[in-house]
């Protein structure tokens, strides 16, 4: 029973990570209707920045917040410089640009920080009072951090004027522009937020899977699955989707198919969701006008 509970809890902890990657994807999808294939590599790159800061003697939490801020700025810059010129281009162009970003971030991480596998510190003491037989301190800690991020995001979108403006820009760009919202900058804000959320996810997952340039490859795939399961235009759904995918992955891995085929599980999930219920569990039904 303990082992089963342990699987569930570590599934939930993984689910937090998947959920936050999914959340970052949803941020960009809502604003621009594009799926950001470079999300995982951007998060990995942010984690490398945090690693470099910590290694040069910064305290953990200072490095943490500095990384989030740097990632936010970098996200805004990427949108302004690289994505803005192709905003209205066909889907294929956008996918190719995203793939270009993916390989650039991946190779830059390898180039600057080298391909060796690095350990990344966890801020939560290994044998602290938080740890029990069912979950480790890091699992609980990272879950708490992710919940804080969620709460902060919810508050931001619900109670601040900028959050309101961003929602307006995503829902109805034309009307938003008419009431004086700078829609293009709101998209950039969305990119910044996505990059910041991604960096938190990266820093939380790095102590578990170790840091190397390809760290997020598989995680991004689960993030996709989570986002699709929850409905790609629904932030709350994405997080819930993350939890479901995390628990499902752990239980299937432990009791049914073993850990070797984990990525295939994600593939089956993605194709299955897309063909059977393309809007996800909580997504809006979209009707296209001819």
């Amino acid at each position, binding site marked *: 029973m303990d082992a089963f509970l342990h699987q569930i809890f570590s599934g939930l902890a993984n689910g937090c990570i998947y959920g936050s990657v999914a959340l970052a994807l949803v941020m960009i999808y809502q604003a621009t209707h594009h799926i950001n*294939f470079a999300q995982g590599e951007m998060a990995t790159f942010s984690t490398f920045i945090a690693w470099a800061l910590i290694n040069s003697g910064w305290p953990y939490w200072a490095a943490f917040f500095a990384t989030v801020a740097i990632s936010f700025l970098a996200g805004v810059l990427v949108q302004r410089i690289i994505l803005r010129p192709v905003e209205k281009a066909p889907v*294929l*162009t956008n996918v190719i640009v995203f793939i270009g970003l993916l390989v*650039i971030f991946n*190779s830059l991480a390898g180039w600057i920080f080298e*391909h060796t596998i690095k350990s990344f510190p966890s801020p939560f003491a290994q044998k602290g009072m938080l740890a029990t037989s069912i979950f480790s301190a890091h699992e609980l800690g990272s879950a708490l951090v992710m919940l804080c991020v969620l709460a902060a995001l919810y508050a931001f979108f619900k109670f601040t004027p900028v959050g309101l403006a961003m929602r307006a820009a995503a829902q109805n760009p034309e009307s938003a522009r008419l009431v004086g919202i700078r829609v293009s900058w709101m998209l950039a804000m969305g990119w910044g937020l996505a990059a910041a959320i991604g960096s938190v996810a990266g820093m939380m997952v790095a102590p578990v899977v170790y840091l190397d340039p390809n760290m997020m490859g598989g995680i991004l795939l689960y993030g996709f699955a989570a986002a699709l399961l929850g409905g790609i235009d629904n932030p709350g759904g994405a997080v819930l989707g993350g939890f479901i995918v995390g628990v499902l992955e752990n239980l299937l891995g432990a009791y049914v198919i073993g850990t070797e085929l984990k990525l*295939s599980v994600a593939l089956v999930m*993605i*194709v299955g969701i897309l063909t059977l219920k393309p809007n996800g569990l909580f997504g809006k039904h979209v009707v296209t006008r*001819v």
Partner: protein
Amino acid sequence: MNKNIKIVLSVLLVVGLLVLPFLFKNYRVFQFNLVVIYAIAVLGLNMLTGFNGQISLGHGAFYAVGAYTAAVLMDKAGMPYWATLPFAGVVCFGFGFLMGFPALRLGGHYLALATYAFALAVPQLLKYKHIEGFTGGVQGIVLNKPEPPFSFRFLDQPLSADRWLYFFSLAIAALMFLLAWNLLRGRIGRALIAIRDHPIAATAMGVNLPVFKSMAFGVSAAFTGVAGALGAICVAFVSPDSFTVLLSITLLVGVVVGGLASIPGAIFGAAFIQFIPNIADEISKSAPWAIYGAVLIGLMYLMPSGVMGLIRTIGAKLRPAKASASARS
């Protein structure tokens, strides 16, 4: 006059291609082999993405399936290498057709996403322990390079295994390019382009959307699978880790560099993805991919129609000048 020049140029090109392997060392010839093979794979992806507008980030997986089909047939069934190519094509056509079905419901990004997941999952599937008897697991399969059926010397160089395979791949590539050209220049090609540009209008004109789209997927996968089989024969080795998602991205780079929806562009794209990493490798291990990324984004801004688009633009600029010059004289 113009026609004569064209004939002379084509003859020169063919002679050049035939003499080429005897001018270089074996390793270079091996690289030329890979260019020819990549050209077929890039052409396959271009039929789907360039002509039909279906975005696939998973063609490396079909390349892997083709390579493994050939390797398993040669290693386990003792088949001669040339006989494995049709099998690789048929198997990949089947896989592509099956992938084409969910693709019918997935537009744009979602298809890219599903195929990306496919490309990520394939190396893991190839390592799966219950099929290890066939695939050789993590170690992969080591093959023998086929010996040339006859031998002669030309320009003081013997017909080595690599040189023989160069001619073999070149013949297959010529056949595949001819097939693609024949397929795309007529009614089917027009239907595929119509689906890409306006699916609803295409349906209204009587194009059977599901059939054409899944057939395009199947044919495209078959081309890439044949390339994969040739690749396995030339490299004489297959292993799961040589077919990562990066291979799929490499093929996409080839398509974009050569030019979307251009048949001869595949050759330029293939040469690019074969030789640029070799040059860039000397700067840093990561440099090839940084360059790939920069080229992908740069081309999308500056030259969305790739090398072939550039050639066409230059040709169009030269022609009126020539016409007015001849009119004056």
